[in-house]
Structure formats: C-alpha cells, structure tokens
C-alpha cells in the first residue's frame, strides 16, 4: 500500500525530516516475460499501463522506457487541455479526456495542479469567426462549452492584450471562450501515473531502449529486444511519439506517419498577468502563464521531418513577432528557455490507434497536441489491448481508414495543427 499524500502526511513526515518517505515507484528486476509490454513511459504509455491495471486487471505489465519516465513529449509541451474540436469523431474523445484530467488529482492521490482556467480564442479575421461559430453548436451536442465574446470582453479579461486595435494590421474582431480548457503540471501527471502503476503491480523500466520488435513464426508479435536482453510478451503496445515508424520498421511494417518537431518556449517568470489560456489562431501563437509565473508560448511547427529537438529560428521569430503584435508590452519581457519535441503526424493529421498488421502489436500515434489526449488515449489503448477491439471513442481512428482513404479531417483550434 502506498503512503498517502496529504497536508497531514507532510506534517507527519516533516517531524522525521522527511527521511521516512517511501519511493513513489520501485525499480524491480526485469523479468523475461510479461503479459503486456508498453513501449514508452511518456504520457500515453504510462496512462495505458495505468488503465490496463485499473480497468482491465492486467498488472503483469512492463513499461519500457529508453530514457527517463515522463521524459517524452509530456516533458516538452504547452500543457493545454481542451476539447474544442469540430467533428463528431473527435469531440467526444476529447470531452472524455478533459473529464478524466479533472478527476486525476483525486484518483491518483497526486496533485496534478489542474487549473480549469478557460481558453479564449482571439479572432482577427471573419473567416476564422465562421470556423469558430461552426464549432460551438456541434461541441454543445457532446457537452463541450464554447461561448462567443466581444472584443471589449476579451480586453477586460486579458488586460495585457493591448494590440490588435481598430487600426492594427489584423484588428481583433471578437472571440470565443472555451471554459472547459485547463492547464496542469505535466510532471505530476507522469509521476502520478507511475506511482499508481507501481502500486497496482505494474513495472516501469527506465534506461531500457527497445532496439528490435520480435515476431514469432506465426507472424504474431512475441516480444522485444533490448540491451538488457530479450523480453517476451504476447502483446506489445507502442506509445513513442515521433519514433513509431523507427520501431515498426524493425518488423518491416510501414505506417502513414511522418515525424516532425514542434517547439515551445517560456518567458522569465513574472507576477500574475494572464489567468486564461490565450489562443490567437490568426496571429499564429498561443500562450498561458504557468503557476511559476512563466509565460508558456507555442506557435507553428517546423514544416520538415525532424528528429532534432531544436527550434527553427525563422519559425520562432514569426511566433514572437505575432505575439508582440497583440502584446506589445512584452517587448521588454525576456525569453528564458525554449525546446522542441518530436511527434508523428498521420497522413490525415488525425491520430491512429489500432492493432497493426502484426497481430498482437498495437500502436497509438499521430497525436498532434497529444498532451490533452493522454488519459483518454491511455484508456482507449488499454481497452484495445485488453479486448482486442477498438474502444468506441477510437473507432474512427483505426489504421484501416487509410486503406479506404476514409480520412478524418479534423483541424485543431491551436495554430499548431
């Protein structure tokens, strides 16, 4: 049984100078056989292992991680949680994910600092207003909120937004508020899941890169090869954003995915300034302020395929110039840190979650802004692995859609679509 986390337990352990805290997760010896191997201890991999144990009672599970747990894209994103999508295929999935996030702190006994603070889309173009208007009615069917607000309301809720006036290059014409939107603490999500997986008997093995997938003579997956030896399992799930094809190609499996680099950056920490998530699709950036005071910013992706975690200076400058057009006072604010993360984007830019042509081998990939999808993506992948058929929320996102060219053409609301 895990130690409980609370103010009281902090007090109790504080008396003992905190020398009595137990590890949040163990480092168990690596076995040579499991019921399920999950590759990747990022957000999606950890969530999958968590739901395999919690919902489907599968605990003889190993999560294999090349680096350190929580070091995937979960460590390099802009922590925006939202469900303002446009199509029937997508909205219910993200609504579910937002709901699971809202319960996460309680469920994991780990404070994920879920801050349901609303997202305001700041619109500077009439065609974009039409696009947003279209979303609000269909989102309502699935219980997701989207309310139109005036320019004056935008300015009263975001006082720092002083640009985009009537004479500006792109004047602010109005906007929409998505009250379900939230930010939280990404490390806490990873660590909270890891601690819960461990307490239910699952194992997380860090510094254990998978170098090769292994198939049996019947063509089924039979395990994986790592520098620590061969590990067998009848079911293997890949949750390694960006590197999906690198792994599947070890068994000759091709997928409609290509890897890209998406970058983000933060400012120096400043006192509370903006208490909503601000998304400016016409200007081409979005931002929110972290609890530490840093402004977390993101913009357009680097167009080419990339496995380099760096920012493209020209793309970065575009984003900064766009941000300054609406927030001119930030000229004196300073950039503190920037980073990039790999993701893979499917041919139709929607996610793929399915069993592959290699029986027993599952993938969850193509998550573009996949942070918000972590809990629901883990839940649905766990369902797929345990039951052998897609979760109803993921039915539109199977690989077979590419055989029929039945694309899911969804565009996210952030500029990083």
């Amino acid at each position, binding site marked *: 049984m895990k130690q409980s986390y*609370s*103010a009281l337990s*902090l007090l109790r352990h504080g008396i003992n100078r*905190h020398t009595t*805290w*137990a590890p*949040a997760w163990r480092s168990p010896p690596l076995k040579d056989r499991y019921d399920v191997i999950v590759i990747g201890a990022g957000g999606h991999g950890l969530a999958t292992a968590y739901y395999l144990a919690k919902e489907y009672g599968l605990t003889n599970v190993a999560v294999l991680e090349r*680096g350190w747990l929580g*070091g995937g894209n979960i460590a390099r994103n802009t922590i925006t949680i939202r469900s303002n999508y446009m199509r029937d295929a997508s909205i219910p999935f993200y609504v579910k994910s937002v709901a699971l996030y809202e319960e996460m*702190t309680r469920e994991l006994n*780990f*404070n*994920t*600092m*879920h801050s349901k603070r609303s997202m305001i889309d700041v619109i500077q*173009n*009439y065609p974009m207003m039409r696009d947003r208007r279209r979303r609000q*009615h*269909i*989102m*309502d*069917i699935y219980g997701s909120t989207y309310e139109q607000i005036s320019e004056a309301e935008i300015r009263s809720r975001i006082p720092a937004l002083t640009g985009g006036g009537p004479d500006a*290059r792109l004047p602010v014409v109005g906007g929409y508020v998505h009250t379900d939107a939230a930010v939280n603490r990404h*490390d*806490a999500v990873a*660590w909270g899941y890891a601690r819960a997986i461990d307490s239910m008997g699952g194992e997380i093995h860090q510094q254990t890169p998978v170098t090769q997938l292994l198939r049996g003579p019947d063509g089924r997956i039979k395990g994986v090869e790592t520098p620590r030896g061969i590990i067998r399992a009848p079911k293997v799930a890949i949750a390694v954003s960006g590197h999906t094809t690198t792994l599947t190609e070890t068994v000759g499996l091709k997928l409609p995915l290509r890897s890209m680099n998406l970058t983000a950056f933060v*400012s*120096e*920490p*400043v*006192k*509370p300034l903006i208490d909503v998530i601000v998304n400016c699709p016409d200007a081409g950036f979005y931002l929110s302020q972290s*609890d*530490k*005071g840093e402004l977390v910013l993101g913009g357009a992706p680097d167009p080419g395929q990339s496995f380099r975690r*760096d*920012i*493209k*200076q020209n793309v970065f*400058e575009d984003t*900064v*110039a*766009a941000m*300054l*057009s609406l927030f*001119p*006072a930030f*000229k*004196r*604010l*300073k*950039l*503190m*840190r*920037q*980073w990039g993360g790999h993701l893979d984007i499917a041919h139709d830019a929607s996610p793929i979650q399915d069993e592959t042509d290699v029986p027993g081998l599952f993938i969850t990939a193509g998550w573009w802004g996949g942070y918000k999808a972590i809990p629901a993506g883990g839940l649905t992948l766990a369902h797929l692995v345990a039951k052998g058929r897609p979760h109803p929320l993921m039915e539109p996102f199977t690989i077979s859609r590419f*055989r*029929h*060219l039945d694309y899911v*053409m969804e565009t996210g609301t952030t500029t990083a679509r």
Partner: protein
Amino acid sequence: METKRLDRGGRIDRSRPLTFTFNGKGYSGYEGDTLASALLANDVRLTARSFKYHRPRGIVGAGVEEPSTLVELMNADASGNQPATTVTLSEGLVAKSVNCWPSPGFDIGAVNQLAARFIPAGFYYKTFKWPNWHLYEPAIRKAAGLSAAPSEPPAAGQFEARYGHCDLLIAGSGPSGLMAALTSARAGLRVIIADEGCEAGGALLSRKLTIGGAPAMDWVAEVVAELVAMPNVTHLQNATVWGYREHNYLMVTERSPDNPSLLERTWRVRACHVITATGAIERGLVFGNNDRPGVMLASAVQTYVNRYGVVPGKRPVIFTNNNSAYAVAADLVAAGITIVAIIDSRDSVPEEARALVPGVEVMAGKVVTEARGGRRLRGVVVAGKTGGSARRLSCDLLTITGGWNPTVHLWSQSRSSLRYDETLSTFLPDTPAQAVSAVGAADGALALQQALRSGAEAVARLTDTELPEIPHAPDLPYAIEPIWRVETARGKSFLDLQNDVTVDDVHLALREGYSNVEHVKRYTTGGMGIDQGKTGNINIIGTVALAQGVTIDAVGTTTFRAPYTPVSFGAIGGLREETVALPYRHTPITDWNLAQGAFMYESGARWRRPGYFPKGGEGLQEATNRECRAVRFGVGVYDGSPLGTFELKGRDVGRFLDYLYSNVMSSLKPGNGRYGLMLSDDGLIIDDGVCFRLDDHRWIVSTSTGHADAINGHMEEMLQTRFPEWNVFITAVTSQWNNATICGPKAREVMEALGTDIDLSPDAFPFMSLRDGTVAGLPVRLVRVSFTGELSYEVNVAPRHMRDLWAKVMEAGQPFGILPVGSEASHVLRVEKGFLSLGHEVDGTVDAYDLGMGWSMSKKKPDYLGKRAVHIRRETGGVRRELVGVISKSDRQIPEGAPLTPGGRKEKTEGFVTACVWSVVHDRWVGLALLEGGHSRHGETAHVRLKGGEVIPVRVTVPCHYDHDGEKLRS
C-alpha cells in the same frame, strides 16, 4: 554610511559620480559601476530575499552567473528579473528587489522560513488537493513570478534585426577570443567577435596579470585597437551570443548598439566557422547556510576589488578546493585587506599556490561546515572533512570557490558532445557536431598562457597556417580536488540559490525514486531558474553521484538550451511589426472603395477587400440586400482582381491540364472556357475555377483567391517533378490583370454604354467565352463567366487602367442604377445559385459526386490526379454527406456551420449547414448544407440543432435556389 571604496584603482571613472535609487533609498556610484558594485560600495549587503523560504540574500557573483540578487528596473528602463551584476549603472537609475514585500529588510514572506521543514521539495504534489487546486492557485501564483511584467512597450526607440555573414564568429573577447580574432583577422578572414561584457578583456578585467611583461589590459587595448581598425572585423561588446542553431546560424543580441534610436539589435549570423571563447564560470561550495549575505564567489570578490575598487569585506575568510583562490587572496592582500584564513579542503596545497600569499594562514584538509549570521555574515565554523574538532572564525566575507566550469552552453547548443574530465573535475567540449571549436577556459585551458595559445591554435588549424608567437603570460597553474558538498555541514546547504534547492531536497528526491538527474531537476526545480543553474548545476550532479555511489559522467548533464541568458522578445521580433511582418494585398481601387465608405476586411490570402458599401445608417444586412437586389434586378459591379490567374504556355498544356483537372480541358476551342475541379492525388478537392484557351498553346487558368498560391506551387511541383520533359511554362499573372465584373440583367446595356468593339450578342459572344478588344477605349480581355448567376462581363485590364475603367463603369452604369458590390453580397448571390465556395461546402471531406458534380469526373481520361482515390473511397465508404439546398422553415437565420441531427435530437450529427443567407428573390432564409444521403432526401424536412437545444426545421431542396436552368447567366 561607510563607503567600501578603495582610494584608487579599478576601471571606474571617479570624476563622474552617478546617483541611483535602490528599494526607495538614494545612493551614489561611479560611471563604470554595475548596480551590484555600487551597492557593495555603499555597504548594502542584504539585497534580496530567496524565492521559496524568503531567506536573506546578498550579492554572490559579478556577472551573468548571479543567482541571488535579481532586480526590477523602473521607469524608462522598465524590465524585470535582471541580475544586479549585469545592470550598468546610469544616472537616475531606479531599481528594486524582486520577490520580497515590502522590502528585503522586512519581508512578510519570511514566515515561510518557520514552515520550511514542512515544505520540502515537491511538497505541492502531495498537498493542496482538497477540495481542488483552484482554491490555492491564486495565492501560489502571487507568491511566484519574481518581477512584475512590463505594462507598456518602450516609450521611445526601436528594436532591430540584421543579418551577418562571416568566415569566423568568435563568442567572447577574453584572452583566447582576442587571440583567435587577432590571428584570424591578420590572416584575412572576415571575423565577427561578440562579447557579453561592456568592455573587452573577459577575465583579464578582473585579474592582475601580465602579458609580454606589461599589464594584461594593455595587451587587450592594443589588440582591440588593431581589430577595430581592420575592415574585415566586426567587434561587438555588450552583445551576447545566445543561440546556436543548425547550419552554423547563431543569434547575437547587442544591448547598446551604436545608434541612439535603437534599443537593441539582434544579429542573425551565418558563420563558416565558430569559435566558442566563452570562458568559464566559477561554481560555489555547498555547506550549511552557504546562502548568507557575505558569502561570495572568489572570482566576484576579485572583480569587485580589482575592477570596481570596492572592498566587499574587511575580514575575509577564503574557502577553496582549488588553486584559483590563491590568486584572489594575493589581490586582496595587495589591496591592503587582511585575510583571516584560507580554508582549503585539499590535504596538501601546492607550494606555488601558497607562495602567492606568504604569511596568510592556510588551513589544509579543512572545510567550512556552516556560515553564521543572519542578514549579514558574522563568522564561519571550520572543521575536518569527516568531522572532528570545530573552530569558529569571525569574518564579514566568505570567499568561496568550488572550481571552474567551462562555459559550454553554446558548444552544447550546437549539439556537440561533452565529456567529463577527471583532472579538471568538470565537463569539457568533446566532439564537435558543426564547424565549431572551443578555446581558452571554455575548453579547459584555465591558465592564461594556455588560453592564449589555444585561441591561436584553433585559427592556425582552421587556416592551415603556422602558429604565431604567443606572448609570455605567467599564471598560476590550475589544480583542483573536487568537493561536491561538505558532508559534515550543519544547516541548510543550498545547491541552487535562486530556486532554494538544498542537499536535503535532492536526497528526498532520490529517496522517493526520482533517480534520474532530469527527475531530480524537475522534482526539486534545481537549475530551472533564470540563471539556469550556472553556478550550481554541477554540484547537484555531484550530490546525486555521491548519493548513488556512481561517477559524475554516469549521472550526466541536463540539456543546455537556448538562450544562454534571457533575451528580450523585442530584440527577437526586431522590426517585424504590423504590415512589416505581414503585408496585405489590395487592388488599385482601394482608395475609391474607402471614399465610398466601404467596410473593408480581409477575406482570404491577405486580400483586403470591401465587404459591403453601407449607405446612411445601414448595417451589414441592409447594405447587402440592396447590393443583391441591384445585381438580381438591375446591375452591379465588383472588383474580381484577387482571383488567382495563371497563364500557361507550351505544346503540352492541354494534357497537363487534363492531368490537373478532373474533367477534360484539352478539347476546349480557342476563345472558350470550362469550369472544373482540381483534385489532389488523395481525391480531395483542392480548388475549383475556370480555364480558358487563348490559342493553340496559350491558356488561362483561374483559381480561387485563397488557394492561388497553393495552386501555383502544386502546378509547379507537378510540372517540375513529374513531367519535367513536358513543354509547359507557368506564369502567375494575378497582379498583371485587374477587372471590373459587371453583372445583372442590365449588364449588356452598361457594356454598350461603355462602348466596345466586341460583338456582345449572345450568339457571337456566348457564356464561357473570351474576347480581346477594347471597352471604353481601353484594351481589355472580356470574359463571360458568372459567379452570381446573372449575365456577367468580366472586363480585364492592365492595372494601370483599372481606376480609369472603374470610373467609366460607374459613370456609364449610373443611368442603370449600377451599384458596387462587396464580398458579402457576392456570397449571398453564389449561395442562391448553389455555387461552391471552398472552405464552406468543400471542407476536405466531400468529392465531386457528393456535390452533384459527378459529370466533372471524366470517364474518358485513363488517369488524372485523384481519380483512383475517389474511386477507392466511394467503393468502400459508407453513407456520404451530399450537398443540398435548405430552406429555413422558421424566420430565423441558421448560423453557418450549425449541425443537422436526426430529428434535431442531441446526438451524432448527420450534416451541417454550410451557408445561410437572406434571399432577395425569395424573401426568406435559404442555405446550403451537407447532409447524409442528401441527394435522395429532397423535399424532406431535416433539423438543425443549435447550442442550447433550439431546433430549426429546414426543407431539403436542390442546391440551386434560383434560375435552376441557368437561362439568366447564359442570356
């Protein structure tokens, strides 16, 4: 107030006193001071409060490494979180400490010290959960964040960005950087040398060394003078190289450019080769209460004494594990300061080090276990490394050095690798990933002679020339025995002063399983402050290594990310604001439109166009209705210039177009045109438009406004990559032609009034044909196309004739009641006709069959883009959403995009309304929709479900609401 200024010496200008304000009190300093040196000169020791525990803090460093004293600058200089050590003192400067209230002397937040035991690393992950985080968040946020954000842009001046190209970019103008610059500049290379300090010299500014027998700064002055005189050298001071991108692209920001109207200037430098001569940063030592005001880095103490003529303490104790402290001690002695003792953790101290300070007590094999004092250091406790008898020493300054870390940030940003060096006990540059070399202290050459040599050697290798003579520069050899933390320490031992991270915090993280150094960093927040752990990170790594019983390199470093030091967003954005950043397109009659009171906005591809022309107090709807009525019952004119236009020439244009369009274009006769769809190979509709044949080998392709640029790329891609041998030349002529499109039942009468040499009779000049000739005396290309469903003439002229043409059209049309028509009315007219608009009806899911345009999918052509894909999709797909007309059964406009659901119930949608407009011919709301199985549902009732549950029943019809047989447009 006691002044701590030496009588003479230092690089300050004592003839130019300056006054400044810090935390509301007035002080004075000199030109050449930093805020930090001036505060120390005024004996201000307590300058800050720490982030979490609000412990009293002072000045620790002398440069960018400063972890403790961050200030907010006020008034014209307004900016936050500046290390006091990098703020150049100026007359009237106003600064205040961040993160304490009301002042560092009396700080309310200091109550956190009492609770310190109960708020260890990561405590917030364990608490603040009930009832929810939202309850606690505002208070937590208020406590965090350091400075306030600037609330106004700079009142005057601007930022600038420019490109720089060079053979060699040198980052750092210390001894090795200057030596590299001199050698390479003399060899004729184009050199840019940039340095973050306000003066060249690097560490030489702070040290008392000689080069070639003369003071080292004389050598610096000579070298700088020679460099500045050379045309192939650009020398920048106050200019930080902060980013190292791919393809040797580096970012340099000058903070005080030579132009007074410039605030900052960013250079985007593309360098054939880069030399990182970035020096080294001293690291602290980790013992109890090592954060007390008065505990300072040895290099900082040396800087204050030598460069600023300030005595940071009269009774210093020095605590070291390496040789460099002895040179500092010698400088203190030379300044007349009596050293209490040197505590050296090494059991045996090299003789050449001791020899620098004869007569000073050296306590070898000893460590400081604890600093004593509160707001001001009062003494230290000294003991053996494993304990034993403790001795108290009284002092007012503790000068510490934990050794030197080469500044490998830029090197590492270039993705070049590092290795751990046992001898120097630090990470050193290893294998370069780009054309880059590290020299001097940045490469571990920590003694002066070595540094000079390495700078020259790097250039000699690069230019394949002989090594020049290196001047004699004696310096104490560097030697170190690392001590990552004092194991017998008492009290909080800080690893990261800025984020208040202690040894206990790191141990707690490890105990709880956060064993990777990245976990340690994130769980404790160590190294994640504004200083990015410049002085403390390696001690965190060392503490982890000690606890885990592994080597330093097994623990590894965390990633070095740009920027090296914070950079203002203004400097990154440069001049790129508003129309400079994002130009818009418009046509020659914009002035006329504005004079008519047009409501202008952008409607795709950055074209700024008139939406409608309100008269009197009209709103959008009234104006639009009036314009629509003019077109339907009289005549209107709109400016169709933004439509994408391309001229294709060559023998193979016909088959090229047959490949691009789903229907056949090659069979067109000269002078005739045809509407068509372009598909991608995925079978998605990427554009629609009309195509005209001018003669055997010349064609005009028109595209939608919004997709013109994309279609240009698409056509060039197909031509250049799939059919490079085909004889086709594509010229974008959108801007070479403007037009006035005259439409409505009276269009022909207006044309006749304008006067033309073209026979306008329907037989001679039918719908979808084109004629060259003159209209109103202007050379024109006249085209009979219609996007409104009315008789329509597109009068194309060269842009130089556009204003003339427009005026003549308005004049000739006046008797017929001609009105200018904006894009809102155009939208209504095309919806009434059931004409497509990309982005409305075509949203990436429908094909030609869904749109009722199956006729456009050629059966005859064996292949064209998208043919096979559409076939596959239709063969296996389920129910399709098909284009229909909808007529609202209520008197309410249906919002565009509103979903259609079965029976209006709250369930999965079966389509949506793509457009809904007020029809002036039907006097009701009509629209278009994509509806599942829509083609077989004409006459049925479908249901729009709005947010909140309101249901609007609609009648499903054919898409065309007006002139179904097209008699009017062909008339």
